[in-house]
């Protein structure tokens, strides 16, 4: 399993209710059920992934998070998870608002556009970055609203969203991000994981 998923799982208490938005083939959901006895539901847009979840006996709803989050009642889940998809929405601010409405807490991970390899690609080579975390070219990327860990940090402060914890992930290593080490972590983390309340 991805390091990112392990970090997310570690942030979650046992025996709670979780909604995994953009749950993919359900690998995180399976892990949460097995390891933490978590009651987990998924929302997924890709038909093939939806079927994979169903075959595994996971509860999944085929649908688009951009337009269909309204179906989940307010505070109906302890945690809502959104893994590396916020940047692909037309209106990430609206989606985030909905996530914070549905969950008592929200975990969001973002691919960090401030990672040094991304920066050098643009600075040295003058080309849009293509990396492991950002594998698509400019013309076929689903990402519409790329941001850095610092951007998202500032965004939460501006919107008065309570940041509980931020974890930076670079391959196998993880580290906690605070205001004081933000500049350096923004340079060396591939993915940022935010726990919001």
């Amino acid at each position, binding site marked *: 399993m991805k390091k990112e998923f392990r970090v997310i799982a570690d942030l979650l208490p046992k025996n709670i209710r979780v909604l995994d938005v953009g749950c993919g083939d359900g690998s995180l959901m399976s892990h949460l059920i097995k390891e933490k006895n978590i009651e987990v539901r998924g929302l997924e847009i890709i038909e093939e992934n939806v*079927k994979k979840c*169903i*075959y595994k006996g*996971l*509860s999944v709803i085929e649908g688009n998070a951009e337009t269909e989050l309204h179906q989940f009642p307010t505070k*109906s889940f302890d945690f809502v998870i959104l893994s590396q998809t916020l940047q692909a929405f037309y209106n990430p601010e609206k989606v985030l608002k909905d996530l914070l409405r549905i969950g008592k807490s929200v975990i969001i991970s973002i691919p960090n556009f401030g990672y040094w390899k991304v920066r050098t690609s643009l600075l040295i080579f003058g080309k849009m970055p293509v990396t492991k975390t950002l594998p698509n070219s400019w013309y076929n990327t689903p990402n519409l609203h790329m941001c850095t860990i610092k951007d998202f940090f500032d965004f939460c402060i501006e919107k008065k969203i309570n940041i509980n914890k931020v974890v930076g992930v670079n391959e196998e290593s993880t580290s906690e991000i605070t205001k004081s080490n933000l500049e350096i972590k923004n340079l060396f983390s591939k993915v940022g994981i935010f726990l919001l309340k």
Partner: protein
Amino acid sequence: MSEKIKKLNVSKPLLLDCKKTVKDFPLAYETYGNLNKDKDNAILVFHALTGDQFVSGTNPVTKKDGWWVTAVGPGKAIDTNKYFVICANVIGGCMGSWGPKEIDKKTNEPFGLNFPVITIKDMVKAQETLLDHLGVDKLLCAAGGSMGGMQLLQFCSTFPNRTFSAVPIACSTNHSAQNIALNELARQAIMSDPIWDNGKYLKKNIQPKNGLAVARMVGHISYLSKKGMQEKFGRKLQEKADYEFSFDADFQVESYLRHQGFAFVERFDANSILYITRAMDYFDLSKQFKGGLVEAFKNQKTKFLIISFSSDWLYTTKENKDTVIALNAAGADVSFAEIKTDKGHDSFLINETEFLKTLKGFIDSMHVKFKNEKNEKRIQSNS
């Protein structure tokens, strides 16, 4: 004919929605496969408007394939080598269950329009008695498409703990104005046939064939999508080189409808169509509960999988999703998948691979979970 039909005499009094109470009425049913020792493999199937209890194999009365032979049978998505499949003919129907063509003991004549107007809830309550009779406390799964799906939603709401999982397919929690209108068209076709004679045709041992055939044609149009129909028939002519400048069936689509219509009258009772379509039109699950749909699905432990078909215009994806939303709002465990197909509402009855794979995947995974749950309960009660 009657010896091929298994019947349960429902002796328990049943209070119908129309306030009449009935008892000692027949409920015709069929089963496939065997109930295992742990009783964890029973699946109840609810049939649609023109279906019956003969889900799989050959229907012994019509000699045609069972109506869901694509999904149910040995090695099929609902594998009868593994599962025990139960299906009953709805009350109001005409394959042996209590319906308008049965004999009214008071008059010694067929009920006709003296049969009470029944509802989806009445159908479901009658079928629950069958589970007791067969010794099934809790089903592994219940499934049904179209009116079968509506029965299933009613079943889960009325008997919240009777099935571990449920697959309502291409259905809704109430009938839309368009669906009521189409049913009214079918009923008017029957009632405007002079043979129908206020439902008394059975006394003369005849059927309002023309009216019933037109009613069936209306249905068939609504079961297909525009694209599916265009691909299947287009403007192709029926075994002729050019137009005949007459009102015979020049087009293949006309010929198809006429064939479907007149084949149907051989196996179905016109009054049954009136009663069953009425039951569908009256169906509105939210109306039965003060708190609406959320209340209807409150305290559900059943695991739902709702399936819709992208080209179904009779029970659209939107309507199916509304059921998902209601289940979510009630905190129920619900999955949803839309099958992308041009085959329209009828997709659940045909060999639609993606649909059948999804159905099988869900039921098989639910079987594992159901067995685990039963084991855990056993361990808990032993310790």
